């Protein structure tokens, strides 16, 4: 299976692990990630205002690219996934907005036809967690791992449609497929503070610490995330258990992990 892959700015720089292990794991699972040509940064956060058009064009171009190749668009960064899915929803449901956007498009118009998957959704819906389970060579049996969804993976649910926004299971099912124990805790879908670390570092610290404290109290030895900013905020604010990208764990279980300095 071949998919159009949107890596995003951070995966080519500070989050190279997230990118590298996405490729290696996909390959081990029989999926080819074809990087979208000339992709541009999604902007990191979606602007909900309907009159913001130019800032959403990079997402639309990536979506149009995937649609024209008849491939699903797959992203692994929580932020890219959120922005691209919300932009696609706006293209499907808001005709005035879509008309404005299409004035920028050189050829055929685009109206939200592409299918957007987060990498986790790809594992669940296109590969299947049962298939994943069969491909595990290094079982993570006995490890107590907490999934950190943060805000971007699940919300707004009307658009993301990834999982139950208040009682999600996709990351826990992923952890179990790798043989490990999934630690469920209350703060797993609460915000780490995100970009607020620029404006109010104390706010980010309080939010991040609350997540780590809650995960540890539930018995977690490790936290996994799909978001570079969640990882940064949790670590910068003193997480005393490892915070790792879910793709790194995946690569380890599939036996395709190698040492890197990224």
């Amino acid at each position, binding site marked *: 299976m071949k998919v159009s892959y949107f890596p*995003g*700015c*951070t995966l080519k*720089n*500070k*989050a190279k692990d997230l990118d590298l292990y996405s490729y290696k794991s996909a390959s081990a699972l029989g999926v080819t990630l074809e990087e979208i040509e000339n992709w541009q*940064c999604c*902007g*990191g*956060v*979606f*602007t*909900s*205002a*309907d*009159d*913001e058009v130019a*800032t959403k064009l990079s997402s639309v171009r990536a979506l149009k690219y995937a649609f024209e190749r008849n491939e699903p668009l797959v992203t692994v*960064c929580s*932020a890219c996934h959120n922005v691209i899915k919300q932009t696609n929803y706006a293209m499907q449901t808001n005709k005035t907005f879509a008309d404005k956007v299409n004035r920028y498009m050189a050829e055929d118009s685009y109206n939200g036809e592409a299918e957007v998957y987060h990498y986790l959704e790809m594992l669940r819906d296109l590969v299947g967690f049962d298939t994943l389970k069969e491909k595990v060579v290094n079982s993570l049996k006995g490890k107590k791992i907490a999934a950190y969804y*943060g*805000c971007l993976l*699940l*919300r*707004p*649910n009307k658009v993301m449609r990834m999982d139950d*926004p208040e009682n999600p299971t996709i990351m826990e099912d992923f952890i179990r497929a790798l043989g490990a124990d999934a630690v469920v805790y209350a703060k797993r879908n*609460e*915000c780490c*503070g*995100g*970009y*607020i*670390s*620029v*404006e*109010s570092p104390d*706010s980010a610290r*309080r*939010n991040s610490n609350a997540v780590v404290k809650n995960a540890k109290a539930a018995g977690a030895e490790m936290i996994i995330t799909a*978001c*570079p*900013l969640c*990882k*940064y905020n949790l*670590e*910068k604010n003193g997480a005393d258990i490892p915070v790792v990208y879910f793709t790194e764990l995946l690569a380890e279980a599939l036996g395709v992990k190698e040492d890197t300095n990224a």
Partner: protein
Amino acid sequence: MHNNRYLRDEIIRISGVNTAKCMKCGKCSATCPAYDEMEYHPHQFVNMVESGDITPLLNSDSLYKCLSCFACIDRCPRGVEPAKVVEAVRLFAVRKQGANRMTANDVPAIVDEDTPQQLLVSAFRKYTK
């Protein structure tokens, strides 16, 4: 200066929100992870825009405390989507010439060797025009 009627119509237009749907239960503010940082809270944004009392919001740092976590959007029992109101007021503020909250000159003081690009692009998207 803008009169309140114009401001209200403009914020409603940018946000796409019908503030009259609010039933004042306060759930948006109860679930807001930035509540302690804010002078005006999400339910107040909705209420003050509805009543046209918008100038205090435009002058408040509360505009820059929203995390865009969408918790209030998903948890509002009336589908009001308060974060879109906060966003619309903030856009109205930063779209003014010279009103950017952050500039490129601020970046060196923000970054450390682990800072993800995502942090900077997100902050610029929210705090500048």
